[in-house]
């Protein structure tokens, strides 16, 4: 009872409420600007938290984190420019929806699934932190290696159209991810002596270039068509549609929770895994990638499911799972608090107050998101000849801001041209992106396992977690192969019938 009143006292202050609200607003706005990520916003806000009360300080940063996770989806849907890496998956269906005049529906679907996923993730944090933390600690390099192998199989399900081109795109992505300094020996790989390439290719310019720029190039290569004045933002999301997506949202959230609890995988991978899982199970499989609400919902559920769960290793083990939680860890330490098992003994009331704030942040996200949609969805009504030059300007500013370097501006435009060529050659960009993200993780964990096991290959089958993921990987490939044969038979049947 004593702790209860203490928690209430700690939590119910104007400063805390204000911190969460301001944090979520900043997060949504910054997250929606291409190139400015939630990571950057959290880092930039950190110095301002030095003088705040510890709980308010952490809640401000958590608010930015959660807002940013959602905010990235806004521009992904409206202008095909992922505001943050994790929302790259959202645009696969979100942008086609906006093009078909369902911008508002896509934005609402993204918001509701984000909030639901966020909520589930918070529940997991509060009730299962200790249990999930244990899994995280048992996740060594070999376990990681198999998780990545399994994740790589989602390329097969994402490669719509031509399987060969999908795999080709993934290979090119993997190849590109290897530019930079080798992680084990520090030797240069395909950097051609350029210092700008030694830290490997920056993700944000690649992302903006690959998705936003080809759209602009294409627009100016096409013949000018008069703008049809119409309300393009369209209607909202019907309850029945949300209900239809519910299963995918919950599944995506759980995927996000597990991925988030394991340090070092990240929201982008979670979004893609959730998306491909939803696609595999959905009755509307064929509509995925062409503007399917469920696709938007699954992707957003995956990436927001991560947000609460990354706090699990942080709070219970003192291990930051990604850059943002590393910064939040810094904020804890600046206030003389060290997350970890000891904190649960020494500062329990503070942790509970924090949990209450984190729960509240989901609610605030819902409110702020709804307001944001009201204004942002108007972007869909701006004629493209006016919108695209301004989008390009945002892209350039954002690409520059990542490293404060014009090299990244050039890099972004180069990827824009590459993305345009991909479009023309019908090579899908999503597998390319997955290859780029997972390629280094695949190689690093393979080599790490070999180093840890002193070149003994038995380390790859050392425990139940590895067996589990080996089974998943094999199953996923077998399923894809079976589907491939099935489809082949169908098209052959069709062909013989028509002839």
């Amino acid at each position, binding site marked *: 009872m004593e702790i209860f009143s203490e928690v209430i006292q700690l939590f119910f202050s104007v400063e805390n409420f204000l911190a969460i609200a301001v944090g979520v607003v900043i997060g949504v706005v910054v997250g929606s600007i291409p190139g400015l990520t939630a990571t950057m916003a959290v880092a930039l806000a950190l110095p301002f938290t030095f003088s705040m009360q510890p709980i308010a300080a952490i809640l401000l940063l958590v608010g930015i984190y959660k807002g940013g996770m959602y905010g990235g989806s806004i521009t992904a849907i409206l202008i095909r420019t992922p505001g943050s890496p994790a929302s790259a998956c959202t645009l696969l269906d979100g942008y086609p929806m906006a093009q078909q005049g369902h911008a508002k529906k896509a934005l609402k679907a993204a918001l509701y699934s984000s909030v639901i996923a966020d909520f589930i993730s918070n529940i997991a944090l509060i009730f299962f932190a200790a249990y999930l933390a244990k899994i995280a600690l048992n996740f060594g390099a070999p376990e990681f290696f198999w998780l990545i192998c399994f994740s790589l199989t989602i390329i097969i399900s994402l490669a719509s159209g031509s399987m060969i081109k999908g795999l080709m795109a993934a*290979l090119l992505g993997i190849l590109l991810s290897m530019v930079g300094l080798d992680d084990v020996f520090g030797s240069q790989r395909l950097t051609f002596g350029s210092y700008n390439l030694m830290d490997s290719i920056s993700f944000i310019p690649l992302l903006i270039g690959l998705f936003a720029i080809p759209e602009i190039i294409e627009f*100016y*290569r096409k013949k000018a068509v008069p703008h049809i004045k119409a309300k393009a933002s369209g209607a909202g999301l019907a309850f029945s549609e949300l209900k239809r997506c519910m299963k995918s949202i919950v599944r995506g959230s759980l995927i996000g929770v597990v991925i988030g609890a394991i340090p070092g995988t990240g929201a982008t991978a979670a979004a893609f895994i959730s998306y491909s899982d939803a696609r595999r199970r959905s009755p509307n499989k064929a509509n995925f990638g062409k503007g399917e609400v469920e696709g938007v919902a699954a992707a957003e559920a995956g990436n927001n499911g991560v947000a609460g769960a990354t706090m699990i290793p942080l709070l219970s083990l003192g291990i930051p799972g990604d850059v943002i939680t590393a910064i939040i860890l810094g904020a804890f330490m600046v206030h003389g608090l060290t997350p970890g098992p000891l904190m649960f003994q020494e500062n329990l009331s503070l942790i509970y107050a924090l949990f209450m704030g984190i729960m509240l942040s989901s609610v605030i996200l819902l409110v702020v998101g709804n307001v944001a949609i009201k204004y942002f969805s108007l972007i869909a009504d701006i004629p493209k000849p006016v919108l695209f030059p301004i989008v*390009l300007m945002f892209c350039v500013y954002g690409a520059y801001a990542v490293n404060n370097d014009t090299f990244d501006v050039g890099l972004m435009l180069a990827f824009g041209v590459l993305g345009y060529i991909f479009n023309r050659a019908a090579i899908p960009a999503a597998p390319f992106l997955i290859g780029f993200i997972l390629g280094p993780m695949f190689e690093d964990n393979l080599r790490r396992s070999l*180093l840890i096991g002193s070149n003994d290959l038995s380390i790859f089958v050392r425990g139940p977690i590895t067996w589990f993921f080996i089974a998943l990987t094999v199953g996923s490939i077998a399923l894809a192969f079976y589907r491939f044969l099935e489809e082949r038979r169908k098209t052959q049947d069709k062909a013989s019938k028509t002839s």
Partner: protein
Amino acid sequence: MTTSDPKRRVKIKDMGDVITGVVLFGFALVLLFYLVPNYINEPPILQNPMMSPQWLPRIVGWLILLFSILLIFQGLLVSGPSEEDERMIEKGSPRRFFMMVVALVIYVALFESMGAVFCGILATLVLFVAHPVRTWWVYSMAFLFPIVVAFLFVEVMNVPLPMMPFWL
């Protein structure tokens, strides 16, 4: 690529795929036999070939080679499905395309030396003229947005952008 004449399409089912395949085939050869051995250093002592920095790039190279051959065959034998239509676009005037390229070049070449605001205004104007936008007041946006956004980046969010032309 897509406007290959119909006579040839009888023989080659999907010209785009063949070209893509050939380009990637060539790229894979360059990668495997020139780039990997020359631009990836291998440490002198290796306990396991899988540890080498060249290992994965090599595998990726061979796989690209394999898939590019498959892609060429696919282009020769399998006619592309309805996606042919999606790839077809009605081309605009070369002037329109050229001005877009100019705008991109402005950003790459002048961003550091002339500052973000100047480049933003210039490139946006070029793109407006390229379309062409005929509503006169829209042109004020080309001035307003770069200035306001640069101000937001630099002053409010503390994200530096190159601000001034070099002579200032």
